């Protein structure tokens, strides 16, 4: 079978969404619910789409975005970012982190901090760039190439400029495996 993107995508209506202005706590719950609702499928959804007031997709929210938002902000965090930019190794930075602020702040303190929990989703979501989109008629090989070089776990599928679905890496990979098997 010659796959194109629209054969592989998950329709937007099947995807969890959250509105612009929602809080971090609401985002966490929506990610959790999303996983539970689809846990009977082989590949659960790992992201939530963020919609503006016109229901346009303006961002993606993944588990990693939430974890980053929960990082304690301090001068120590800034320093660690700087050392990372200047080429210090992960090992060095990890050792520094463990000796820094994170050791002194308990998990409870971080995860019940009302300032953190009330952060707006648009402050920590992944904003969309032009290379986050792919047309629904794109062939499988091209889609696989784009996800590979752009290092994307998912892309938004468009029809005449409108987002109509989500293309997930797991589905693309599965289709590639099927294609390989068929040709053997």
């Amino acid at each position, binding site marked *: 079978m010659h796959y194109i993107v629209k054969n592989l995508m998950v329709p937007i209506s099947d995807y969890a969404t959250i509105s612009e202005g929602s809080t971090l706590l609401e985002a966490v719950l929506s990610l959790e619910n999303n996983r539970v609702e689809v846990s009977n499928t082989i590949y659960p959804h790992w992201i939530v789409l963020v919609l503006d007031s016109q229901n346009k997709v303006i961002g993606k929210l993944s588990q990693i975005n939430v974890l980053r938002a929960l990082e304690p902000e301090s001068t120590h965090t800034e320093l660690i970012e700087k050392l990372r930019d*200047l080429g*210090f190794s992960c090992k*060095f930075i990890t050792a520094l982190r463990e000796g820094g602020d994170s050791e002194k702040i308990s998990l409870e303190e971080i995860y019940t901090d009302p300032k953190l929990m009330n952060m707006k989703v648009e402050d920590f979501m992944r904003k969309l760039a032009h290379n986050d989109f792919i047309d629904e008629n794109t062939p499988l090989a091209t889609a696989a190439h784009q996800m590979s070089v752009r290092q994307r776990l998912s892309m938004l599928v468009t029809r005449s400029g409108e987002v109509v679905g989500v293309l997930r890496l797991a589905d693309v990979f599965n289709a590639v495996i099927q294609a390989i098997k068929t040709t053997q």
Partner: protein
Amino acid sequence: MQELKRLYDRIVQRANINLRELEFDVNPYVQNLIPFEQMVKFYAFFGISPHHPLDFQFRRSNLAGSYFLGQCKVTNSLLYKSDIRGDELKKKGDLFQYQNFEIPVSRDEEIDIEDSMLIKTLVHNFSHDPETLETFFIRNTVAANYSNIHGSPSDGSFVGSFATVDLTTMRDCVIGNFAYLQAGEVSHLNIAPGTVWIRNPDEFNFMYQHPVEMLNDYIYFKAGVPPRGVFIDFVEDRKEAFQRVFDVVNIEHSTTVPSSASLDRYAVNKPPTHIGENVLVSQRAYLQNAWLGKGANAQENCYIINSRLEGYNVTAHGAKIIGADLGTNVFVGFNSFLRGAAGKGLTIGKDSIIMPHTIIDIRVPLNIPEGHLVWGMIKCKEDLDRHSISIEAFSKINSSFTMGNMFFEGNGGSFVGAFRDRIEHILEANGAFFNGSEKKGHAQKNQYISFNTLQPYPEGKNKGLYPTIVIKP
């Protein structure tokens, strides 16, 4: 003067295009830094000697108060009181060592400055980029007062006041005030003011961050605010002495200079001063009540006042030593500011390394033991304890080390070895080891330089621009 203004706009626009990703606008930093009238006021000058190549090409540029030596091309640029020293460029046939490669140099290297604005900037050394061996380029770059671009090709970057980029190719970067970096190759980085960063991938990585609040007392420069602080006051207070040096055609220094040493005619020399054998005092250096032992040097923009340097001392570009006694083989890095207590008060033991961009500013006497590595900002003995370590101990580090705002990862021995090798190379290049017939360096070769001046259009739409000038042997 309209052409001069158009040229300024062109340079600013080109720098900004390169820096758009960092959302950095150079215009508010430099728009009032040099009144255009000043650019008409000063002559440019160049040196000729039997020991240096001669190939200058100046096109559609202003060169007010700038000095040129060697092989240099300047196009569509504003160079204000800058030093462009092409006396360490590579020559055709040289072999450039890079990692496991020995790359032959196919033609004499040249400094190529285009679409750039350099204000009181020192450009020196040679391109350390293995991809551009024959061209030390500076393009679409704006550099502010007393910055150093040392062996560092640059494209689309902004270099802050008293910042140094050393042996590093940079593209689309902002280098904050008084930041020092030596990192091989960097791009799209915004380096915070007061960062001292030295990296050799797979070998070592050193980073120190000056406390910004305290650093602001020494140098403060931001959009719309011209550079100010202790550093600026210090050089401004001594500006008049340089004025005289530049106004007089034939200048005779009253100090006895040995035949193996060089005291540049564009240096300020306020006796009593002692110049030992093989000493090099470069142009724009300032000596006052200074004793320089054999093989010591004072490079461009250095100030040595009420101080004694025992010998084989490297005082790198822009370093200031006031009220201090330095043992032999003490290295003082770029733009370091060492100020002893009233009278004398700072002693530095032999073989110590004062890292680039170190500030030692004390009110009571302080003794730095011999063989120490020193960095950061030091105002008392307690600060010294937090910002120094014996070189022997540092050499034993083989994984990582943190002390206050200093972070080190890698091999300490390799780091110290790299410094030692470089100090040796600088002393050699400066002629510190000259034995009367061999091992000539700048101290011996620079005695035979004669100087010529260049002037811009005095009136009309090209006012301030220099005509196209090509100078060859």
